């Protein structure tokens, strides 16, 4: 298939206003690259965002876009998609937008399995309001509203998504364009709510928060890129892997204790029972590598298609075909 578009076709005429060095620039690029690969007519793309630095995203896309209000993007996107299932609907949101004020709409969109693609920019901070902690900030983080360190346990995005009946969850790093692009394509193809957590760097208010695992130097050893059907292998020299030890995951060195690729867990993103995916999503450095890639991708009926089917099913046999029929239905009487 020859692509009809190039990434440039998705660039709007608006100046990009993120801070120089902000991870958001990279996400914008990878999304524009991914859209090219989807074979979807440009006019079908609709980007819905809430409020936050990341939520400025739709302005920079030459697609239909709605920069809405803080926290409500999941609800608006749900409405768009249910109203017109033909559209390719993308929600752009931040850790505050999706998980603080927007937490309820987020879990309900996921529960309903509405076919929207949610890109969650997780910089573990409120960027736009200049640096207050968010529901994903590490405990102890010093910010403008936690001058002595937070005392709150953060959400783990993957855990919450799966807990809300999520069927697609992936994780990527802003700077990894190739992986990100690939994931956006898979998310778009998945039918149902897809949540992609992007570990995004905010150079101004939370600089380097993902460096321990995202830094070029170390990322091969500290992250594991999952691929469906492939053994869970990672490390600079592809020398490490994951096995199951009782009910827990365990990092092993290939070659040591006569462990070979054969012994490693093979990633099954399609498995409906979330047990292992749940553990994968939750892996934290230094005990484990942080899992990237598509962690869970389970097929299931989508809300908007079920609604569509129910309506057409009912219309097949319905006696009421138009408003006049409805008006005259039930008990009516004539006055002469």
């Amino acid at each position: 298939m020859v692509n009809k578009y190039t990434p440039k076709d998705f660039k709007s005429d608006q100046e990009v206003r993120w801070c120089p060095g902000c991870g958001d620039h990279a996400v914008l690029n990878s999304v524009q690259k991914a859209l090219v690969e989807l074979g979807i007519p440009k006019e079908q793309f609709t980007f819905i965002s809430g409020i936050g630095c990341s939520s400025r995203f739709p302005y920079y896309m030459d697609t239909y876009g709605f920069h809405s209000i803080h926290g409500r993007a999941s609800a608006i996107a749900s409405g768009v998609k249910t109203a017109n299932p033909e559209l390719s609907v993308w929600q752009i949101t931040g850790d505050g937008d999706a998980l603080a004020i927007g937490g309820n709409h987020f879990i309900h969109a996921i529960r309903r399995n509405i076919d929207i693609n949610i890109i969650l920019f997780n910089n573990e901070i409120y960027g736009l309001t200049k640096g207050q902690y968010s529901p994903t900030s590490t405990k102890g983080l010093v910010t403008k509203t936690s001058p002595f360190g937070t005392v709150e346990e953060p959400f783990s995005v993957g855990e919450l998504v799966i807990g809300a009946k999520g069927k697609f969850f992936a994780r990527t790093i802003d700077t990894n364009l190739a992986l990100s692009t690939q994931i956006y394509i898979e998310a778009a193809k998945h039918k149902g709510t897809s949540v992609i957590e992007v570990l995004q760097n905010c150079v101004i208010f939370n600089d380097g928060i993902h460096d321990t695992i995202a830094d070029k130097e170390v990322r091969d050893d500290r992250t594991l890129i999952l691929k469906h059907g492939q053994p869970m292998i990672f490390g600079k020299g592809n020398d490490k892997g994951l096995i199951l030890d009782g009910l827990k995951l365990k990092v092993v060195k290939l070659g040591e204790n006569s462990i070979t690729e054969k012994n490693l867990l093979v990633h099954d993103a399609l498995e409906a029972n979330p047990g292992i995916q749940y553990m994968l999503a939750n892996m934290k450095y230094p005990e484990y590598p942080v899992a990237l890639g598509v962690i869970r991708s389970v097929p299931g009926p989508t809300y908007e298609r079920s609604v569509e089917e129910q309506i057409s099913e009912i219309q097949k046999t319905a006696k009421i075909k138009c408003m006049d029929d409805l008006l005259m239905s039930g008990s009516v009487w004539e006055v002469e």
Partner: protein
Amino acid sequence: MSKKSGVIEREEVVIRFSGDSGDGMQLTGTLFSDTAALFGNDLSTFPDYPAEIRAPQGTVGGVSGFQVHLGHSEINTPGDYSDVLVAMNPAAIKANAKWIKTGGTIIYDEGNFTEKNIEKAGYEKDPIKEEKLDSYNIIAAPISSMVKEALKDFGLDPKSVLRTKNMFALGMVYWLFDRKLDYTEDYFEKKFKNKPGMAEANKIALRAGYYYAETIEALSPTYKILPAQIAKGTYRNICGNTATAWGFVAAAEKAGLKIFIGSYPITPATGILEELAARKDLGVISFQAEDEIAGICTSLGASFAGKLAITSTSGPGMALKSEAIGLAVMAELPIVIVNVQRGGPSTGLPTKTEQADLMQALFGRNGECPAVVIASSTPSDCFHFAFEAARIALEHMTPVLLLSDSYLANGTEPWRIPKMKDLPKINPPFADRNEIPFLPYKRDNERLARSWAVPGTPGMEHRIGGLEKTEKGTVSYVPENHELMVKLRAEKIERVVNEIPDLVVQGVDSGDILVVGWGGSYGYLITAVRELQAAGHKISLVNFNYIYPLPKNVKDVFRRFNKIVVCELNLGQFADYLRIKHQEFTYEQINKVQGIPFTINDIKDKCIKMLGDE
């Protein structure tokens, strides 16, 4: 069926069915009013039930009532005082004693006037005596024992037998008003298609009551109310919530659009969502959202995607929607937000009626945030104003707030069914080809409405949002641009005035008192005003449906009366709004904040006093 003696012909009569929440009074009242309507009476009904699903049996708090006002002449309210009270237990007497017309008829179920129940209702021994109702026309019917008797060989369990008591009572009332049983019998046959036993039991109880009434002949005088003199046509009974839902469906058909309703259940608005959820036959998409915010936001998304967007709620839910209404104003997307008002503030009196959310509708948002406000005034005209709300939203690209109330939502009246071909076509300003490149906030000169380019349309990709912006949609903090946009948004709403009808004065064109109402108090106000007119007073009524903008001729109407009296079920919100918009007039007020409608006498007495003050 049978001959009667002592029949009294009446212009109108009010009957109230009252009993425990479990006694089926709502169904009884509905069946009675449907029968009266089919007979050709004009009528108005009002159900009145406790907020609890089942309040403690036998207590006043648990009383559920249904009032029907039917007549040969035009009927505009469910009536203040009842001619006939059907009381299924002592608590029903307690709840209604002061609302029975002097000398009226009370039918009660003797079998339920046990010591325990009498005490629960707060009486010592004899409710009738204690309420000083002895001289009324009292019919103590052994309803409980009669149904037991009638169904004794029927094989039903005792609980189900007793559930037919309401049909026995209804049978008695049918006899009293000389009505046929067939509509009610049909109803049971349909309802219990798969339980023919239940259908039969109810029919037996119904007939038993009818014959019992005939037999005892205590029920004289019986009433005869001739069919009303109403316009030719096909009629049906309709309540405000259904009429509202249907108004939207009609508007969607006339606009060639599908409806999307995103809502969260809340009393007394839920009926709109429920009716639209049932309208999958007409392609309605109903989205039961996780809360009111998601209700309006999913709808707003659907509006962006090109649907006729609706969201329905009541006061507290309205509060939650206010931020998103602001977004709709800013994004200039069409959406209708229905507020079926209930008693407030806060959770307040969820099942009661009030008109106290007017200021909230007008001003309950941050910033200069104008949106059209419309109010329905009778159960059946909810259809018309829902249609109007949708028309204005779609043609002017604006959110429209539609105010109904608990009284309209649940009340019913006969409604002459319109023909769809008689309704106007609705023409949303869809963007066309020659608007490429598409400028989302470019306006037409007449209405100042922007054009609507729906995702999926090639070449019209664009971005909208809640930040201030230029005509092109580009975010702008330029001071002059902001002021311009603020004024354009206000002016857009003001111009709706060119497409709404003038106020209609009911009565003389000038005179002593102009009664001013808005929305759901109409029935009470027009009845009171007509009675005062009949008594020779120079009094007229205007009832507002278009609240913002106000009709053009307000000033012209107001200045022709000596006194203007604004009547509303709140502390004076519309009066205050008029003070803002038409400061040049002086406004008297009649207010009531009791969770219940006005009574005709409330209005009449106060108007007469004001006439005297002249």
